[in-house]
C-alpha cells in the first residue's frame, strides 16, 4: 500500500481544467518533486491534497483511505501538512506560539480546564513549550522563540513555516517552493536540512520547486506538470532527457 495515491485526480475552475487525470503515488520516506512551468497546476495539487479544494473527479487515498470530502483540519490530523507558496504565518504570534498552534491537536486539556487553570494544563503547556523550542533547534532558531513571527527575516519565516508543519506530526509533508527568495547558499543549506528532516521525522516529502538543479539534486523521483497534465515522471536523470519536459520549459 502506498502512503499517498491519487487516481484520475482533476479539478475544473469555471471552464479551465486546472488539473487533469493526475496519477501519482508517494511511498513512505520518499522525497518526490513536483515541477512544471508557471500556472501548470502544482499549487492546485497541494490544495486538492489538503482539502482546500474539492476535486471535480478522481480519488485521493492516504494509506488506502479516501480523504475526499474531509476538511483541511481533518486531513492535517491524519497526516498531511503543508507550507504555502506565499508565506502564511501567524504574524502577530510568537515564533514558539506558531509552532504550538500546530501541536494543539495533540494536546488534551479542555476549555474549562484552561479557564480555571486546573493542573493538567500546566504540565501539557510545559511539555509543548519544550518541544517547540527543540524543533526550532533544527534551523538554529531557538533564540527567536519569543519574537513575533512577523519580525523574522524572510528566510527564517520560510523555515518557521516548515517547522510549524512538522509540529503537526505529518506522514507526508508538502513544501510549496520552500527556497523561493533565498540566495544560493541558503538554498543549498535548506536542501540539506530537508534531507535531514526526512530521516529524522520519518516523513515523506512532496516538493514544489522552480530551481531545477536543486530539485534534481534532492528528489528521488519527479512528476512534471504542464497545463494541468502530467507530461513526465521518473528519476531526475530520466526527466532531464525527456523531450516533452525540455519543450515545456523552453516554451515558457
Amino acid at each position, binding site marked *: 500500500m502506498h502512503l499517498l495515491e491519487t487516481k484520475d485526480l482533476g479539478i475544473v475552475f469555471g471552464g479551465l481544467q486546472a488539473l487533469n487525470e493526475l496519477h501519482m503515488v508517494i511511498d513512505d520516506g520518499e522525497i518526490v518533486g513536483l515541477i512544471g512551468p508557471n500556472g501548470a497546476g502544482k499549487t492546485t495539487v497541494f490544495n486538492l491534497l489538503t482539502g482546500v479544494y474539492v476535486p471535480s473527479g478522481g480519488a485521493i487515498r492516504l494509506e488506502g483511505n479516501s480523504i475526499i470530502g474531509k476538511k483541511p*483540519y481533518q486531513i*492535517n490530523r491524519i497526516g498531511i501538512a503543508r507550507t504555502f507558496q506565499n508565506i502564511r504565518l501567524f504574524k502577530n504570534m510568537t515564533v514558539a506560539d506558531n509552532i504550538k498552534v500546530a501541536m494543539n491537536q495533540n494536546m488534551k486539556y479542555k476549555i474549562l480546564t*484552561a479557564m480555571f487553570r486546573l493542573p493538567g494544563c500546566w504540565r501539557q503547556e510545559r511539555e509543548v513549550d519544550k518541544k517547540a523550542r527543540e524543533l526550532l533547534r533544527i534551523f538554529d532558531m531557538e533564540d527567536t522563540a519569543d519574537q513575533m513571527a512577523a519580525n523574522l527575516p524572510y528566510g527564517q519565516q520560510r523555515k518557521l513555516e516548515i517547522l510549524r508543519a512538522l509540529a503537526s506530526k505529518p506522514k507526508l509533508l508538502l513544501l510549496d517552493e520552500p527556497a523561493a527568495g533565498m540566495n544560493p547558499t541558503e538554498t543549498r543549506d535548506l536542501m540539506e536540512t530537508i534531507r535531514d528532516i526526512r530521516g529524522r521525522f520519518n516523513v515523506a516529502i512532496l516538493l514544489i520547486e522552480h530551481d531545477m538543479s536543486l530539485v534534481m539534486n534532492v528528489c528521488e523521483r519527479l512528476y512534471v506538470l504542464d497545463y494541468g497534465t502530467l507530461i513526465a515522471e521518473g528519476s531526475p536523470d530520466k526527466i532531464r532527457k525527456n523531450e516533452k519536459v525540455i519543450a515545456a520549459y523552453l516554451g515558457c
Partner: protein
Amino acid sequence: MGGTKKSIGVSYIINTTLVVLLFFVLLIFINTGVIGRYNTQVLTLVCINIILAVSLNLVTGVLGQLVLGHAGFMLVGAYASALFTKNIGLPLSISFPISLLLGGLLAALFGVVIGIPALRLRGDYLAIITLGFGEIIRVVSYNLEITNGAKALSGIKSLSNRQNPSPMFIYAFLIAVFIIVILFTFGRSRHGRAVISIREDEIASESMGINTIYYKLFVFVFAAFIAGVAGGIFAHNYGTIDPAKFDFNRSVEILIMVVLGGMGSITGSIISAGSLTILSEKLRDFSQYRMILYSVILIIVMLFRPSGLLGRYEISVPKILRYIKKRSSNKKVPPEAREE
C-alpha cells in the same frame, strides 16, 4: 509571555491584591455613603460595560470577527432575566442569580442560531448578520406583549436599597472580575492560541489542524452568553428597560470601547470601557452629543494610535513598574551601549 515563572507569580499576587483592595475600598465608600446611590449605579454600569466590552473584544479583537449587534444579546438577557424575577415569585436573592444565568443561556441560544450559518462561511458575514439580528430583535420586542411593547418594562426589583446600597455593585464587580480572569486564562491556553491563529490566518490555521468552525462558534456563543448576563444585571440595576436602550447605537458604543482600548487587549477594553462610561455619565446633560463625542475620540485615537490605546498588549501594575525601572536604569547606560 516570556516572563520567568517567578515574575508571573509575583505579578499574579500584586494584581490580585490590587483588585481585592479596590473592591473593598469601593464597598466601604458605598456602604458609608461617601459614594452616593447615583454614583453607585454608575459604578455598576462601569462594571456592566466592562463585561460587555471584554466579551465583544473576545470575538472582534481576539477572534477577528466583526460583530455589530452585541446590544441585541444584551437585550435578550435583560428581558429574559427581568421577566423571570418579576414573575417567578421567589425571593430576589435567589431568583436574581438564576435569572442572570437564564438570560445568558437564552442569549447564547440566539448566538448558536445566528452563529451556525454565519460562521460556517469565511469572511465578514457575521457583521451583517449580527447587525440584522440586533435590529430585528429590537423591533420584535417593541411589538411583543410579554416585553410590554414600546412601553418600558418597569418595576424590575433591585437587590440594592436605601439600607443596603451595595449588592448590585457587588454582583457586577465580582462577575466582571470572574469573566476577566477566565478570559485571560482562556486566551493564554492552547484554545486561546487556536482562536488567535484564526484571526491571524484562517486558512493556515485550518491547515494546521485547528477546527476553525468549532472555535469560532464557541467564542461567539460564549460572548453572547456574557452579553446576556450583562443585560440581566443592567435591567436590575435600573429597574426599567425598553428596547431603545439596546439599539444599534448601543452596539456601536461597545464596539468603540473595544477599538479604543486596542483590539485584542483585555486590559485595553477595561480601561476604555471604564473611562468612556464615566465620561459619558459626567456629560449627561449633553447626552445627545454622546455619539459625536465618541466619534471624535475615536478619530483622534485612530490618528495617533491606529491600533488603539494598548494595541494588542496587556498592561498590569508590575509591568508598568518594571518598565519604569528599565527606563530609569537605561538612562544611566551610555547611549552607544543601549542597543536592544
